């Protein structure tokens, strides 16, 4: 079992003829993902890695009965591509693109609320259900099938945590990188809710970072609604206020909101053990399972 994507998910790659789109479409197919179509305006009728390309998402979705897409469209055109995916409509849309103007994302987010589509990202590594499907740029070979659900704001930190789990022989049901931007389609609570409802997910690892209050909100949700045990990790304990640490969303404000200490406190108060290092996170998970 898994959440959101599995071997039956029929995937469109938006931007499949571009460098990134082409490379990662191939990687996804090699992993076993059911990539059924590409969508690129003006490139309808072509084929990429044996996958038919359509001019519009609507045509691709109807012709190939697709229910998900991965978006590799450049920032200036990404919001339009996301509106197109929401309009198709699709069940799951994964926005890999980094650097979409925030006001554009805000408009997409407003439209998203009026649909039943689950948007992951933008500026995220994607989602993977080990052995079944990966939608995004995560290196498939480091993941293994197992009992732990993973949700993270950061890509490479996800890989690090997975690596620490793998060393103990612990695999994943599904792993989601929700993205490091200020406005994202799927937040921690959305992902936790899905894992809570998945009978095969025996524990969840949640990797947060400084900035915003999503982790604090998630802590309240865990305390109130979750039976599945959660283990936390928070990056950015040493980050100074007012400095953006790489991700657009990773900044401790001048007034001190968004600090690692506040997030760690909130999680610990909700009964969530927070690992000081990735291997301590793995220790906690090992104890739970």
């Amino acid at each position, binding site marked *: 079992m898994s959440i959101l994507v599995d071997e039956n998910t029929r995937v469109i790659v938006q931007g499949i003829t571009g460098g990134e789109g082409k490379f990662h479409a191939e990687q996804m197919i090699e992993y076993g993902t059911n990539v059924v179509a590409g969508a690129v305006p003006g490139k309808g009728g072509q084929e990429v890695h044996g996958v038919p390309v359509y001019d519009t998402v609507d045509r691709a979705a109807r012709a190939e009965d697709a229910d998900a897409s991965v978006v590799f469209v450049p920032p*200036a055109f990404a919001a339009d591509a996301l509106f197109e995916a929401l309009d198709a409509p699709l069940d799951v849309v994964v926005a890999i693109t980094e650097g979409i103007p*925030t006001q554009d994302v805000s408009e997409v987010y*407003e439209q998203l609320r009026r649909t039943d589509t689950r948007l992951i990202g933008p500026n995220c590594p994607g989602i993977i259900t080990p052995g079944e499907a990966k939608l995004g740029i995560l290196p498939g070979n480091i993941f293994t099938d197992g009992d732990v659900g993973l949700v993270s704001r950061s890509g*490479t930190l996800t*890989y690090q945590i997975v690596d620490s789990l793998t060393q103990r022989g612990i695999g994943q049901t599904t792993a989601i990188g929700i993205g490091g931007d200020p406005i994202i389609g799927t937040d921690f609570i959305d992902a936790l809710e899905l894992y809570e409802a998945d009978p095969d997910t025996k524990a969840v690892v949640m990797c947060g970072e400084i900035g915003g209050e999503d982790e604090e909100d998630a802590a309240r949700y865990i305390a109130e609604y979750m039976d599945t045990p959660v283990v936390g990790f928070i990056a950015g*304990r040493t980050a100074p206020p007012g400095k953006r640490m790489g991700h657009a969303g990773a900044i401790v404000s*001048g007034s001190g909101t968004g600090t690692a200490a506040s997030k760690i406190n909130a999680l610990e108060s909700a009964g969530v053990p927070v690992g000081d290092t990735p*291997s301590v996170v793995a220790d906690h998970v090992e104890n739970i399972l």
Partner: protein
Amino acid sequence: MRLHEYQAKRLFDEAGISTPKSTLASSVEEAVEAAESIGYPVAIKAQVHVGGRGKAGGIELTDTAEEAREAAEDIIGMELKGYTVDRVLVEAAVDFINELYVGVTMDRGAGKPVAMVSTKGGVNIEEVAENDPDAIAREHVDPASGLHPYQARKAVYDAGVDRAVAGDVAAILSTLYDLWDETDGSDAEINPVMITDEGEVVAADAVFNVDDDALFRQSEIAQLEGETSGDDLEAMAGEYGFDYVRLDGNVGIIGNGAGLVMTTLDLVDYYGGAPANFLDIGGGAKAGRVRNALEIVFADDNVDAVVFNIFGGITRGDEVARGINDALEAFDEIPNPVTVRLAGTNSEEGMEILNTDLVTVEETLEAAVQRSVADAEEVAQ
């Protein structure tokens, strides 16, 4: 991108938000001339963005040419929290009876813009938000339709603004929202909006930040000379296109991906060291970028040891290893001990390529950080 006060005020003027009469000056002579022409009293204001600019001596109120000269001499060339002041705004001092706050920003939790008004103007609004949140009236905005006029009125009346000027303040909020929307603003703030005894409404200060990711379609703003970091290494990293933040420790850190680099910093601290910087080489970095990253970290005199932490997804371990070798082989003597940890894509190839005469290779993140912290301690002694 953070605009200077004088740039933001030009935007305001063009949009129809009234600001005090002012002139930009980059020398003492220019400042005095501007003060004479505007007429006293005038404020001489340092054009750098640091919190508490007034308290730190960056703003002086003057009544005569002599005072204006002294103030300009004090302020031009002064250091304000790491920034050198090279320009001042000479501005007519406004005689006010009331100060308000008006702002527009993106509420990341709600995912939509928010327009704000408060009668607690002229003070740090973040403190107001924390201690007296009800003193700020907030209106969330549907980004597709913009701020409706009724919402601007509602915010102004809810904030308790004097009815005599409510219409004018609502107009300023509407104009500020439209400007924020059209120019891809991230934060726009007028603090304070001054109300004069004649009932005029004037933007006395201006904060305007534009979304860096939107500069591709904001060509006029992109051409403006924005606030650059006063730190040489941060400026150099900016030119190379790295996300880099300088800290005050002695363990230099290079990694890929913001979350993993932050985690590496945290681990340095956890094992008793002190991080010297945050440097993210980004995804898919090739050998050349790795060389540039090392160049920046070595250029920091505080650095006593360097740790590389790469977990390859789209970044390839062999490329990183080649970059490290190239960079280090160019030195007769390597400035600081370097520890490398490679994992993920092509990491095994990378480990074979690495010249172990020049670097220490560790298998795990924890071991690499501990090694580098120990190296830094040894060098520092």
